[in-house]
């Protein structure tokens, strides 16, 4: 089985993000970048599936600037087998990225594609869905699991997604509960936060990553239409949080929640 996992380079979720005064983007000076946390969960799941089946190959794919090499190296140090970086310095929308992945899935003859449910920079939550449509493959989004992240099954590295007899069983998070789906493989699966706790690289893993293949492809060499269909007009920072206030009584609190905050 060949599992393709997508990896996006995104700003560190702990960094404080500032919008440029003209609203055309965010200020990237001195910004730290990491693997999109949802993609990290996808990598972990792929590695667990590989460890369980014994025969799988885990291939990481990323689209972005040359510096995204760093995030691919992180994934290789976690244990993925090799990586492909499609080098693109321009802005790309979700559809363009899905088309690039479509091409890579075909070229690589992958059996399963795992993606984070969304990237934490633009929160679009659509690349996986678009990719499934382009491929004509079944899809399951927001993969989660019934065991808690404190459970023994989690600690022993049991995968949450079960694959056997050409089908994948996926527990997905829906409003107010969990839903279990079965879908034939090949398939596209996007993963949610509670699927697993990703491992971090050990030193032997880091040293091995140095020797693993990281192939770069120029975006033009793929023959894919990446013309943007979407234009970002402007970015605005969220409104500043108002300072808190002390209230004198429960009554006053209830009234404030009702009349001012309008939450009850």
């Amino acid at each position, binding site marked *: 089985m060949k599992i393709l996992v997508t990896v996006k380079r995104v700003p560190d979720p702990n960094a404080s993000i500032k919008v440029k005064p003209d609203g055309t983007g965010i200020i990237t000076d001195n910004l730290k970048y990491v693997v999109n946390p949802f993609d990290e969960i996808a990598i972990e799941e792929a590695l667990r599936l590989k460890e369980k089946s014994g025969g799988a190959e885990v291939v990481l794919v990323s689209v972005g600037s040359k510096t995204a090499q760093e995030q691919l190296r*992180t994934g290789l140090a976690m244990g993925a087998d090799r990586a492909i970086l499609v080098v693109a310095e321009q802005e790309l929308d979700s559809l363009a990225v899905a088309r690039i992945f479509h091409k890579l899935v075909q070229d690589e003859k992958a059996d399963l594609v795992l993606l984070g449910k969304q990237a934490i920079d633009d929160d679009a939550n659509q690349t996986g869905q678009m990719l499934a449509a382009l491929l004509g493959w079944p899809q399951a989004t927001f993969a989660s699991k019934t065991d808690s992240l404190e459970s023994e099954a989690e600690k022993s590295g049991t995968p949450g997604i079960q694959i056997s007899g050409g089908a994948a069983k996926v527990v997905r998070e829906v409003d107010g509960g969990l839903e279990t789906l079965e879908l034939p493989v090949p398939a596209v699966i996007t993963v949610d936060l509670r699927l697993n706790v990703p491992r971090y690289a050990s030193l032997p893993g*880091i*040293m091995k990553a140095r020797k693993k293949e990281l192939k770069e492809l120029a975006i033009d060499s793929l023959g894919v239409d990446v013309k943007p269909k979407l234009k970002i007009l402007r970015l605005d920072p969220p409104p500043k949080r108002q300072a808190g206030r002390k209230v004198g009584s429960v009554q006053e609190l209830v009234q404030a929640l009702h009349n001012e905050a309008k939450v009850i």
Partner: protein
Amino acid sequence: MHDDISAAWRSFDLHAPTDEHRLLAETLQTFVAQEVEPQAAQYNREERFNLALFRRAGDLGLLGLTVSESDGGAGLDATAAVLVHEALSAADPGFCLAYLAHAVLFVHNFARNGSAAQKERVLSKAISGEWIGGMCMTEPEAGTDVLGMRSTAVRQGDHYILNGRKMFITNGAIDDRTTGDVFLVYAKTDSKISTFLVEKGFSGFSLGQRLHDKLGVRASMTAELVFDNCVVPVSNLIGSEGESSKHMMRNLEIERLTLAGMSLGIALRCLEVMVGYSNERKTFGVPIREHGQIQRHIAESYSEFRAARCYVYDVARRLDLSSFGNRVDADGAKLFAARIAKEIADRAIQVLGGYGYMGEYVVERLWRDAKLIEIGGGTVEAHHKNITKDLCRAPELIRR
């Protein structure tokens, strides 16, 4: 053209010059937050060694950090070693000292100077964390004056008879009764210094006492070890008889540099605590960051920390672990980092007022820990003496 040169130079990261350093730093960040920080207060309060955590460091490959890959280590350099000590000490300098005594004083030293046969037998156990190691130089009556040590070893047939006492040995014990597993012990053969590999259970080797009630670094165990007609097989002599003083001096360089790394971790954490608190705490109607005297604490701490960090990592960058003769900067880095970390910890307590004096706010522990670096691995006075001696012999070092 000029732009290109300076752009490449600007992106060079002294603290993480390669992908391997960057990945190591990422791993450490998670390991420290998830596994080191949560246990630190308790193990230091109770003066206990966290064996399980030590073995976790073994699982991650941290114990063989600077051992060559052909010997089963990660083959990393002095920069990586400093990085690990800085990261661990930002949470738990006590645990970090136990790590240092094992990974730098025992494993690194042994991998450099042991024979292939010795390494074959011992190294993998030490790198995995199955065996806990340490290094025995100091004696009850010889610390700074290390060449004045009194321990002796006399050859008798196929073994040596080792006699002497060693003092303040980190990892000498792992609890009140049990010695560590394996030690590099310096002793005189005739009048010259040799090194012996002494293993737990050797006849004549025992725990003199586990030393309780240290000021700081309380999650590391310190002990006095006794060698009373201790029988050491000739095959456990490291290198040749009488040639160890060079090895001993060389290992002191990476020891001092990693101790300086510990000071950086302490300083970094104290700064974070101090800055965070000055944003939160209000007096006289304003956050205390508005008060000039608090600003002085923060600004001086920050600039000293940055200066120390550049110095320590620059020495690490230049240090070829197979070379000799880098004492002036190993001592210089530790001399400076130890002092500023101690002062920064002191200012952190001051900025936090009464809360700073309480264990919950961590900086009082770091304040106690910080003092060690002015004593262990060579006192401040020893560094004064060494640096002056080296500079007066070779004044060209100043312009280098």
